[in-house]
């Protein structure tokens, strides 16, 4: 499963970059994130509950932020393991300044699901993956906006 998208962030590129990588923000924006603990430089362990409607699985996950090129580029790698199987996703984020207080965010992702969910979920997995990723960036955008407004 793969896809891409873009959105406009209502903040300058440096500020956007900083907020996007703020663990507190990540915790808020990752769907079903119950707990996010820093375990190493740019590496977190998280308890995620991912899914749609009543169909949810709990995954013990690691989230790593890689290829940091402040303030333009980074890579987010998520690996999760749980009773329903495994989830692996890599997202690449590129930020382009769009004036003083606006930034264009482009993202692309690749996600793979293994085990039980892969065996039975084919009909909807692609769509749901897209939904989960879109949800993440949408929340990031909102969170950034909220922080900018309150700042």
């Amino acid at each position, binding site marked *: 499963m793969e896809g891409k998208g873009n959105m406009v962030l209502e903040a300058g590129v440096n500020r956007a970059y900083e907020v996007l990588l703020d663990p507190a923000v990540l915790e808020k924006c990752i769907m079903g994130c119950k707990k996010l603990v820093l375990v190493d430089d740019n590496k977190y362990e998280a308890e995620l509950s991912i899914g749609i*409607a*009543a169909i949810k699985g709990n995954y013990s996950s690691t989230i790593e932020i890689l290829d940091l090129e402040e303030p333009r580029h980074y890579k987010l790698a998520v690996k999760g393991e749980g*009773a329903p199987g495994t989830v692996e996703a890599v997202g690449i984020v590129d930020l382009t300044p769009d004036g003083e207080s606006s930034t264009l965010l482009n993202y692309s992702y690749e996600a793979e699901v293994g085990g*039980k*969910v892969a065996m039975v979920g084919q*009909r*909807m*997995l692609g*769509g749901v993956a897209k*939904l989960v990723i879109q949800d993440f960036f949408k929340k990031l955008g909102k969170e950034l906006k909220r922080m900018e407004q309150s700042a």
Partner: protein
Amino acid sequence: MKPAKFDYYRPKDLPEALSLLESSGFDGKIIAGGQSLVPIMNMRLATPECLIDINGLQDLNFIESDDRVLKIGTMTRQNTVETSQLIKDQCGLVTEAVAHIGHLQTRNRGTIGGSIVHADPSAELPLVMMALNGTLHISSEDETRSVKAEDFFLTFLTTDMMPNEMLTEVHLPIWKGRVGSSFQEVARRHGDFALVAAACQLELDAHDRISDIRLALGGVEAIPLLISDAKELLAGERLTDAALQKVADVVAGSVEPESDLHASAAYRTQLAKVLTTRVVHQAYERAKGSAVCP
């Protein structure tokens, strides 16, 4: 393949069901026919802590009509819907669509409400609700409200309903006049979820010109997709091949299906086009052949 532990309640009436739902918060789940819920529970993809079995709520098993609106209770079995002469006479699109749901055995158990609230993007009943813009009647302990289908389906398996709410009945408008409808789908096998499904209902004036049309597609998006341009493109005219082609092209341009194991995005788009032309054409022919209602 055994479900995780859950509490089980079998309320006797709607107030009791709603009260149980309210008290179980986010952990409650209603079970009616169980044709989708039980498999996902057995696979432990869903692990609700509390099941509220509404099979005892026989007040919600009904089919009524006041000649303007057809009302179906949420607990009405799909097979009852399929074999109802009243529904066939007043909303034949439903009858035609329900025959495509699974198998006789699953339709004997599955309910109309269960299928709608499960909101599977390829399922027949959500598609028909969207095509006819039916109204969903929803209750919680505090209030009763109604939502149009166009506002009800949000995304995959997700509707406008809150965890403390329950669908009680669905209302479908009864079209009068020279009405024709058609439901078609392409599935890998009889009874499978559709790769793509299409539903159309239209009305003709005395000169065979389309006066109203509703067209919707299933299996191409996260929710049933209403083709709202259809009316603009076709209303006021007799159906021609060129007009049909135009609608098909609009459909092809507006769907963004996902690829999966059984159908690529390109193939789904093709099916959306083909089924669009087929259902519109068939509905049109049926309307032409229908007697003008008194």
